[in-house]
């Protein structure tokens, strides 16, 4: 099996000088290609912090993070931005889209940054819009899309750059259960059909049910790491 994420002994401490908060504490985590993994835990347990570390958005105080064989721990900032652009897809809880660009342009944007040709972009955007079921919203502005539709566009945007994996921090937190389930359907389909690796944090038990691996964080430590067929009902 191919390992896409290798987090080794990773810790993140906020305010080390004043009142230290050990948001992520000595975490070891391996993620293999094709996983569909949920990161769960109570509020403040360090889910966002861990995802940020894995995504190269934040730097650990200790430990080492290797993405697809590349150690990103000590990368220079500009290098890291480029690395994120080409290797990691992001879906955030909200504010994913550029409000002044259409759905199509939002997806295209990331490919433009990668320097893709017009033809490549057009083709891929069409395919992605179809996959998320929003072909009819090509030229719609984000403000005209429902929250669920916006998150689907965000998934397409994350996918557009052909990343190694997609990190999604509470992607369904602002969605009603129908939209949340639709989004999960799309993510699961992409996972199955394109073998895209997803790691998403969530509070929602219905979302957790869909995961094939559940990693639980408590106070910044991994307390359990289970394949769901073992706990499935």
């Amino acid at each position: 099996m191919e390992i896409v994420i290798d987090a080794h002994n990773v810790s993140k401490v906020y305010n080390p000088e004043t009142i230290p908060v050990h948001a992520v504490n000595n975490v070891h985590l391996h993620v293999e290609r094709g996983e569909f993994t949920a990161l769960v835990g109570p509020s403040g347990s360090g889910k966002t912090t861990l995802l940020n570390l894995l995504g190269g958005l934040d730097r650990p105080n200790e430990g080492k993070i290797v993405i697809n064989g590349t150690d990103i721990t000590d990368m220079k900032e500009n290098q890291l931005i480029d690395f994120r652009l080409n290797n990691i897809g992001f879906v955030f809880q909200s504010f994913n889209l550029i409000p002044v660009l259409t759905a199509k342009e939002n997806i295209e944007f990331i490919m433009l940054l990668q320097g893709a040709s017009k033809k490549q972009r057009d083709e891929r955007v069409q395919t992605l819009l179809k996959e998320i079921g929003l072909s009819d919203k090509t030229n719609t502005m984000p403000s005209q899309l429902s929250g669920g539709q916006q998150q689907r566009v965000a998934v397409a945007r994350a996918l557009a750059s052909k990343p190694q994996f997609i990190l999604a921090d509470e992607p369904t937190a602002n969605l009603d259960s129908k939209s949340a389930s639709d989004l999960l359907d799309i993510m699961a389909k992409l996972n199955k059909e394109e073998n895209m690796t997803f790691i998403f944090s969530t509070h929602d038990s219905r979302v957790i049910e869909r995961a094939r691996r559940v990693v639980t964080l408590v106070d910044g430590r991994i307390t359990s790491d289970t394949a769901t067929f073992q706990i499935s009902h």
Partner: protein
Amino acid sequence: MLLLLAWRNLWRNKSRSLITMASVFCAVVLAVLTAALQQGVWDNLIKNVVGYYTGYLQIHHEGYWDDQTLENAFEPTDSLQTLLQTTPGINTSAARLESFVLASSGEKTRGCIVVGVEPAREEGIIHLREKLAKGTYLTQTDDGAMVGEELAKRLSIGVGDTIVLLGQGMYGSMAAGKFAIRGLLHFGSPELNENMLFLSLPNAQTLFDAAGLVTSIVISPTDTRALDQLAGTLNNRAGPTHEVMTWKEMMPEMVQSIAADSAGMYIILGVLYLVISFGIFSTLLMMVAERQREFGMLVAVGLKKRKLAWMLTIESLLVTLTGSVIGILVSIPIAHYLAKNPIRFSGQTAEVYERFGFEAIFPASTETSIFLTQGLIVLVIGLVLSAYPIFSAFKLEAVKAMRK
């Protein structure tokens, strides 16, 4: 793409962008018009001063300006004539012989200044023919006189009447003569209207017993902006026996009032620019604060900070540029209109101006450099202020920005 993004962002908060543009626009229009009026007024004053009588440049016998008597007259020698012909930058020149006499007609007598002129040449210097209000213009051989309108009125004379002049000629000789009035002259300056009387140069030389002598040679330069340079050249070439003076030396009070005026203008412009600077800055401040999450997201998904900064610069420049370009476009016709239809003013200011011998009008200058300078200043302000979004783009931390 970044350009498109910047453009769309501009219209995202339409009213804010429009208000900022409008304030830039107003400031540019105000600044351009202030500067154009000011420059126009100066140009007008200078043109008036030199055009009424003095000319841009004069050559005298050394010491004449401080002691304006016939004893300080000089002979325009061949070498001096050659010098005038060979010095580059001279458009035309004209010789004058000037002195003071008493003029009388019937019962009435008044002091006046008699100037012997080369009538044809004066047309190229002070456009003397254009000042002719009545009668005919003098010729070089004419034995008649032209007088200022007001002087004629006070002496109760008109075209065709005769006037008697009485004064002192060279070396204490008696100067007396009778001259027919050929024409009446209208000057913009009341002072000149009241005091001037023109004869042809040979005629005046005979009157004052000063054959072949002149008191000044008035020079009109081809380029008024190169005046000081021309004066320097002439001064070197003419040697110590002659003094070369520009209008600035002959009318030092003019230079002072222009300097005082310009200080006032710079203060006004300074305040104006300060006001729009604050306007633009507060817009940028709000814009940057409001969009932290968006910026954070953009950097998170892979937008280099350099590009983000570039996008924000384009945004702020678009606002200032649009505002100032429209401002300049609008102020050009206004300035042209004000140049053609100058504002007239009255009251105390007008009196002061008239005492100095200027028409009491506010024309506007339409010099291109004014529009360019003011537009450029606003652009530079825009550029300098866009340092703020650039700075905030570079210090942005994606994670923190998105947490807000």
